[in-house]
């Protein structure tokens, strides 16, 4: 069975149509990247899948638990790091040992008793990932989670996400506007434009990937996004 099955999804804000009869299926354990220009409806789709926006038309089926990592880590500053990790768990599971195990996976175990304020941007984002994954989600939604990080930290995070995905094997929908990030991580790259999916590219390349392997697809994806590579020539 599919992890996500969306059929004919439409979303309007007033008289502006953001999603326009969108169809999307994500298989169990599949890593899908969703690319699109700003305003293409990426984040709206993610919010619908997260259950944050239920005022939509069309069919939305999401199987199992959903976790989200947002662009901002959205930690509760008045909870210690480990308590932030287990926010989404219920009483008997929400213990420190469980939190420390999850923190260990993102190499933050030694910060378990710190306040979130003391973490760097990359550490806070890793904590946000740990909080999303500790619930063992069937679907992990990533909303440009690396967008606010510096370039070096972002590369580290790519490796980490790939590693965590292989270990926990949730289905992943990564919303991003970074083409290279999508090509590096995903099994399948979708391009969203005007509220529907206008292109799809399968990536069979073995992991871990290096970017050079994908230059042919990269050009095609950029064309799908309306960016012509010789536009500035």
């Amino acid at each position, binding site marked *: 069975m599919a992890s996500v099955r969306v059929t004919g999804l439409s979303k309007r804000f007033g008289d502006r149509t953001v999603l326009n009869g969108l169809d999307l299926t994500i298989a169990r354990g599949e890593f899908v990247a969703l690319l699109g220009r700003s305003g293409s409806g990426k984040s709206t789709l993610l919010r619908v899948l997260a259950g944050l926006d239920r005022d939509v038309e069309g069919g939305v089926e999401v199987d199992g638990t959903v976790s989200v990592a947002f662009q901002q880590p959205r930690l509760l500053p008045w909870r210690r790091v480990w308590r932030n990790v287990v926010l989404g768990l219920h009483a008997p599971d929400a213990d420190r040992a469980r939190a420390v195990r999850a923190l260990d996976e993102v190499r933050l175990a030694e910060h378990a008793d710190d306040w979130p304020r003391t973490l760097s941007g990359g550490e806070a984002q890793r904590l946000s990932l740990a909080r999303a994954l500790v619930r063992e989600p069937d679907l992990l939604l990533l909303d440009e989670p690396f967008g606010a990080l510096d370039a070096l*930290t972002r590369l*580290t995070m790519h490796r980490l996400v790939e590693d965590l995905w292989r270990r926990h094997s949730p289905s992943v929908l990564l919303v991003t506007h970074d083409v290279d990030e999508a090509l590096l991580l995903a099994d399948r790259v979708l391009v969203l434009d005007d509220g529907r999916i206008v292109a799809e590219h399968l990536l069979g390349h073995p992991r871990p990937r290096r970017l050079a392997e994908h230059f042919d697809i990269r050009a095609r994806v950029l064309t799908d996004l309306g960016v012509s590579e010789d536009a500035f020539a």
Partner: protein
Amino acid sequence: MSISTTGVLARPETAADPPAPRARRRWRPDLRRWISPIALIAVWQVASGTGVLPPDKLSSPWTVARAGAELVSDGELGSAFAVSITRVGAGFALGAVAGLLLGIVAGLSRWGEVLVDPPVQMLRTLPFLGLIPLFILWFGIGEEPKIALVSLGVAFPLYLNTHAGIRGVDGQLVEATTVLGFTRLERLWHVVLPGALPSVLVGLRQSLGLAWLALIVGETVNADAGLGYLINNAREFLRTDVIVVGLVVYAILGLVTDAVVRLIERRALRWRA
């Protein structure tokens, strides 16, 4: 997965060490700061001793200290203190409950805001100390007008800061915990109220400052017991020493309550330090 790459790349990020846990701040008094206050008191004492400052204008520090000791030993200060503290306590309790409740209602619900905020904002513009004549007409000259005055002084800052604090809570945090499965009540308890707490504590400090002010004004205008009565009574007999003792007690009370709020802030807002 190339471990070595990861290790190298991880360094720039982890190199930015989080600030080391702050060394426990020991309160080390700077004795030099005592020089000028002590000098001022010495000047005061000399001025009184040489007759430059007549005792019917201001008694000498030494006389004030003796009067203080006397008032303590005959129990007069103690009972006046108890009366005043009771007034502030009762007024504060009433005002705090009203301010917090209204602030929470206006902060949490649109309808609450629409209904509660306009009248409160209108009343807020009234100088509440100017209400004393009305309060005397309404409540007489017993304890009620004084308690009511303190309550008013307490309620407004707490209302304003609670309301603003709740409205200022980061909606993104509320959304994030919604995805994590928090119920409405859990979001209120774990996200909204802790998020509003810093603002509420600011309101608490302003409230306590106004509570003392309201008490002093209320007690000075009319009272037959309490610190204000002690001071007013002393005025009739030109006892400037007793007046100063009363003022010093007010000052100490203000300092103590402020210190208590600071302590609460330090404990409750450790995460911000």
